[in-house]
């Protein structure tokens, strides 16, 4: 199903927020955390045991998010990248209207 241009444009500009679990290569947790934090829109937090990293990304569009994912995929110190969260599409204006349940009305 194709979206009308206005809806497509709105979704394109929804500014995604995602989170990932990042498994670094052995011994690379700290430098990888530093490298990820240097990327625009990335907020990386290493676990206390230095075995994995939680990465939260915030980008300006879905295209930018995909570009960032491609960048992450090219980092050799990342052994595995697993997405755990992605912000859902903001509800359309018509979805915000309260739905009346006629059976409950007097």
């Amino acid at each position, binding site marked *: 199903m194709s979206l009308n241009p206005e809806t497509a444009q709105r979704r394109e500009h929804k500014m995604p*927020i995602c989170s990932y679990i990042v498994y670094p290569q052995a011994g690379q947790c700290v430098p990888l955390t530093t490298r990820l934090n240097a990327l625009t829109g990335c907020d990386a937090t290493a*676990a206390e045991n230095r075995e994995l990293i939680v990465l939260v990304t915030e980008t300006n569009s879905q295209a930018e998010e995909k570009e960032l994912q491609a960048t992450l995929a090219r980092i050799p110190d990342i052994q595995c990248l697993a997405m755990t*969260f992605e912000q859902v599409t903001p509800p359309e204006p018509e979805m915000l209207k309260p739905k009346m349940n006629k059976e409950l009305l007097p």
Partner: protein
Amino acid sequence: MNSNLITRREFMKKTAFASAVATAASLTPGVTFASWGRVDGDTNDLQWKKTPCRFCGVGCGLLVGVTQGRAVAAKGDPDSPVNKVLCCAKGYHSVLALYGKDRIKKAMIRKNGALIEVPMSEALDLVASKMKETIDQYGKDAVAFYGSGQWTIPDGYVASKLMKGAIGTNNLEATTRVYAWPAP
């Protein structure tokens, strides 16, 4: 407007982080991310102050969140070698003890069946006279001193001097050591 409010974007980012941490915890039990939110003033005017937990004698490190002169939250100090970020239930809820409605803040003496607020000197004089009366009648070991879990080290030192040095008995104990007992 409440200065502690966060934007929708900030809320979504914290939710995203929490989601990843929950997943990580299920995959790797015991994993912690204590460094997140360690920065002072992370949530507007909320500041995290270091302190030892006062609920028992273990000495866990706490970070107490303070805003507008009032303690509002507590979490384990990730830099503490004692508890390494974790706390027990009493530690996590220790802030509540500060503002308990039944917290005794002033000296009180029961007179005619009712507790009456009195000056501290009057309460201490009553305790001293009762202790002297008991010691004269039954000996030094007939009296005891039970202290609070919120004692400081100097508090305990002075109490020890009083009971062992001045009174002459070893009957001295406190919630500080009797860990599982409820703190007064």
